[in-house]
């Protein structure tokens, strides 16, 4: 059986033109997807059944036992952390927020170690963004800043920018210019019309220099700024001002370096100044396929996008205090529920040392690095493969992922709903 127009549950591009060939309960071929998506669809390294750590061994348990264990763990914790949420569907994220409120826990998603700083900047100065379709059809200049889509979002270039057709562009490949700004000469830099190589940590200074040039203060610019020559800065500023429609896409090269959210703020303000000359937009290259959805769900339910602390009985948000890395590093939480992410592979070691000291339950289809720190892991269906659900693309467009095969694994929403029901029934709740 061939399933057409399947949605790829890997990165924030959420490509919705995938063809998946299914034989029995196995995916045997994938068309249109990039290497990342194809490998995810074809992946067969699932955890077979729920497991419980018993001293220095693992033993198999039933799903009901695992759900009961998780509910009891969360109910008896004083400061539970509910982390992850980017690798699951919106319906499961909703249950997670309700659960965090019920037990006065902290709920944080992977954006705190991804584009959290971008959201902080957007809260300061707004987000002049647009959908990917607008960029595809109108943009004659695209800037990738601190982002390497060839490795991280392989089809972004072919679906929306460098290699895409554009309704309002006569010959998109010829008429659309691409600028890449990075500290490394990446594969994406090799296909750019202009590559701006910045010394590490110099993004803020280069953004400020471009803003000065756009404002007509070129005389104030020194001979080089963070390794970029004044001539190139002027050339880039002119390319931006002469474009009919420009789009900036930025990656973790801006959010993870020194300056963090201040880098993004400066980039947004550059875009705002360019919009006084022409039309310009800016958007984040979101990583997980539904990290944007996690921010959306949290925001509409609590008012805040990540790092939400219900310990006061109301939603409280203070990144740096209520975010997962900080809470773990301060050894503050006394239990953790991990859903749709792998903090043991992606958090600094100090956080893992605390994960080893507290009870941990994880919902994840695969054995991963965090499995080693789990008391219980519950394998779930993969959204977009054997479960369906809503995900938000990197430009904020909600897309319903499809189930391409059936399995016996429960979805995240089913497991979390059962867990939540048990917690609601507990005495005193």
């Amino acid at each position, binding site marked *: 059986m061939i399933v057409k127009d399947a949605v790829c549950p890997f990165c924030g591009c959420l490509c919705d033109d995938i063809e998946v060939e299914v034989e029995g309960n196995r995916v045997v071929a994938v068309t249109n997807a990039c290497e990342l998506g194809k490998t995810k669809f074809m992946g067969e390294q699932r955890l077979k059944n729920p497991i419980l750590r018993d001293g220095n061994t693992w033993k198999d348990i039933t799903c009901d036992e695992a759900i009961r264990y998780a509910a009891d763990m969360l109910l008896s914790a004083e400061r539970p952390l509910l982390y992850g949420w980017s690798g699951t569907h919106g319906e499961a994220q909703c249950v997670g927020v309700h659960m965090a409120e019920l037990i006065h826990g902290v709920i944080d998603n992977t954006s*705190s170690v991804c584009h959290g*700083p971008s959201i902080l900047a957007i809260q300061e100065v707004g987000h002049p963004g647009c959908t990917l379709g607008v960029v595809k059809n109108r943009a004659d200049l695209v800037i990738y800043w601190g982002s390497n889509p060839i490795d991280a979002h392989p089809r972004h270039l072919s679906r929306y920018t460098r290699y895409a057709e554009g309704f309002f562009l006569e010959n998109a490949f010829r008429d659309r210019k691409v600028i890449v700004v990075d500290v490394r000469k990446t594969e994406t830099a090799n296909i750019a019309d202009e590559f701006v190589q910045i010394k590490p940590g110099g993004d803020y200074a280069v953004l400020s220099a471009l803003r000065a040039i756009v404002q007509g203060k070129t005389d104030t610019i020194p001979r080089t700024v963070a390794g970029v020559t004044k001539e190139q800065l002027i050339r880039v500023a002119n390319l931006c001002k002469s474009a009919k429609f420009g789009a900036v896409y930025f990656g*973790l090269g801006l959010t993870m370096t020194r300056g963090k959210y201040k880098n993004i703020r400066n980039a947004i303000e550059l875009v705002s100044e360019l919009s006084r000359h022409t039309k310009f937009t800016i958007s984040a290259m979101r990583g997980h396929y539904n990290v944007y959805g996690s921010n959306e769900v949290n925001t509409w339910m609590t008012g805040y996008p990540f790092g939400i602390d219900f310990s006061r009985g109301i939603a409280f948000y203070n990144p740096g205090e209520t975010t997962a890395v900080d809470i773990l590093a301060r050894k503050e939480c006394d239990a953790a529920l991990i859903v749709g992410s792998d903090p043991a592979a992606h958090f600094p070691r100090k956080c893992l040392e605390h994960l080893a000291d507290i009870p941990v339950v994880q919902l994840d289809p695969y054995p991963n690095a965090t499995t*080693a720190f789990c008391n219980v892991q519950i394998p779930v269906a993969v959204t977009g493969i054997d479960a369906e659900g809503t995900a938000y693309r990197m430009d904020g467009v909600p897309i319903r992922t499809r189930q391409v095969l059936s399995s016996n694994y429960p979805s995240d929403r089913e497991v979390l709903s059962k867990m939540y029901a048990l917690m609601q029934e507990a005495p005193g709740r």
Partner: protein
Amino acid sequence: MTFLMITGRTVNQGVTVENKTSAEYAEETSTCFMHEFDMMELGLADNDPVRVTGPCGEVVMRAVASVEVEMGTVFVPYGPYANHIIAAGTHSTGMPDFKSHEVEIEPTDEEPKTVHGLMEDLGGLAYDR
């Protein structure tokens, strides 16, 4: 020698990210991409093991020459090896300094540990059924 360590996504890291117990994931995330002149300076050939020491510990990786990195900088794909030496401070943003750590790199005779090995060092229990 002192280097600036930058971490980031690679296709191979992304392809193996849902199979973290595989040798391929360990190989990719324990690769320290370096400029070839820096490797010459340290007397390293491709795939030689190096000890990388950061602000909160050390980890053994393998050095591989890359034309993408500048001298004085190394690039390591996201994963448990880089995070073994990254500090947890976030400057009140929630975000550690994943792309701006100074590290010391020296040749070593030790082999990189497995992902399971790293997790067990920190108090975890490997699941490898």
